[in-house]
């Protein structure tokens, strides 16, 4: 694995999908800090575990609260949110403070690539590991696209 292992929180109300994500995360050498199916749990876990990344489904057990969850996670931790949703259209252009969105269904290879990419991007050290290309299927929010690809904007 390049870069450091990421501490990852899963926010997903489909338990099978959450379990699959957990397997993928661990098998890629990252650390799964917990899974939440609703907003209060997500908030509590974000506060107590202080993850690097939260993978957040847009529609959760308590309704389409994914966006609120993302805001709440951002307010109680430094975690960066990546939406992982089968309903890409629900985001339109309002990403809140999220990094972006990856649309379901995902494959192991795709999630692995996305996590390697984020690990590289979020690595604070300026040790210049090799640049990693943005994985296919990962859509950055306008804010992150500007931040990470200023030459395109």
């Amino acid at each position, binding site marked *: 694995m390049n870069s450091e292992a990421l501490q990852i929180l899963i926010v997903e109300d489909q338990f099978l999908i959450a379990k*699959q994500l957990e397997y993928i995360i661990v098998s890629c050498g990252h650390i799964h800090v917990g899974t939440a199916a609703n907003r209060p749990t997500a908030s509590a876990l974000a506060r107590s575990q202080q993850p690097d990344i939260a993978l957040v489904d847009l529609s959760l057990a308590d309704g389409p609260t994914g966006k609120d969850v993302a805001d709440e996670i951002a307010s109680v931790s430094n975690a960066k949110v990546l939406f992982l949703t*089968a309903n890409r259209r629900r985001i339109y252009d309002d990403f809140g403070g999220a990094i972006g969105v990856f*649309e379901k269904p995902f*494959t192991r290879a795709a999630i*692995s690539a996305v996590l390697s990419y984020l690990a590289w991007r979020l690595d604070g050290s300026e040790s210049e590991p090799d640049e990693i290309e943005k994985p*296919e299927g990962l859509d950055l929010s306008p804010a992150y696209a500007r931040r990470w690809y200023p030459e395109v904007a």
Partner: protein
Amino acid sequence: MESADAWTLTEGLRLPRGQGDPLSAAIRSSPMPMVITDILQPDNPIIFANDAFLRMTGYSRDEVTGRNCRFLQGPDTDPRAVSEIRNAIAARRDIAIDILNYRRDGTTFWNALYLSPVRDVDGGVQYFFASQLDATERKQHELHAVDLQQDLERQVAVRTRELEEALRRTRLLMHEVDHRVKNNLQMISAMLMMQSMSIPDDRVKETLQEMLDRVDAMGLVHKRLYQADDIGEFDIAEFTCEIAANLVAATGRRDIDLVMETEAVMIRPNAAACVALVINEAITNALKHAFPIGQQGNLNVAVRPAGNLCEISIRDNGMGMPKELPQRSSFGRTLIETLIVQLKAKIEWLPGSPGTLVKISLPLTL
């Protein structure tokens, strides 16, 4: 010879009741309602009204002579029309206008009024000449036409709203179905992955992994189908790039170089899943068998249009074909054969030098 408008200048007009004047006789007996008013007198009174005017309005000559024409107006007369007439008279110019007037008995009629100044020798205006025409029927047609049009516009607006609402509901439904299909595909993928991890038998594990790859390939197709702006077409080239990259990445090997050469080729969406599964089998097969661990490899994948065909080639520089048909399993072979027949496509497994070249020719008019 007198000029054509000599009558407007005639001294005779100063004699409004000149019995011997053929012109005034003509006006008197004309079937067209006419009046003459004298604007030099206070309040511009009628000094002459012909019989046709009296018939149209229901008044007697005595009742109208000496009065201003405004007695023809009533509560529903448009004040804007009245003020236009007033302005024309003040400016001493002619005017043609439709105005709602009232008869003596209170009934209304549309009056197509034409008003023109009558000038004397010095160019000054002493009289106004007015001809009227009962335009009720024409006006009703006009108003009816306006009503009809407004009614039509209202109906169109209502129908447009209904259609927009129906479209919105349809979109919502489509998104909902799309969302569920994607989640369900993800759940199938999750089950296969979890079961493959829990099984100790390597061959069963591998079989499940193969099935997982197929489900993932179909998931990718579905995702791309609904991401496109136009869901009527599916770019097989973009899909091939993505699945090839995914499959190479999934090997976890860094020593396999993937080179893509693709041009956009649009195929019909209902063929997308089948084509995707064939491509998935072919690439997976190359990755499984061409490059033993430790042997660096190149995988070239090309997609290009060729007339009515789409040509997809997958070339490896690996070990070459084994003696038997290069299929991962008998099911993999059955799968490819079945789909190729359905797609009316052709697949060839050719020896490369080194390695293997798989050529798929797909008719674009499926």
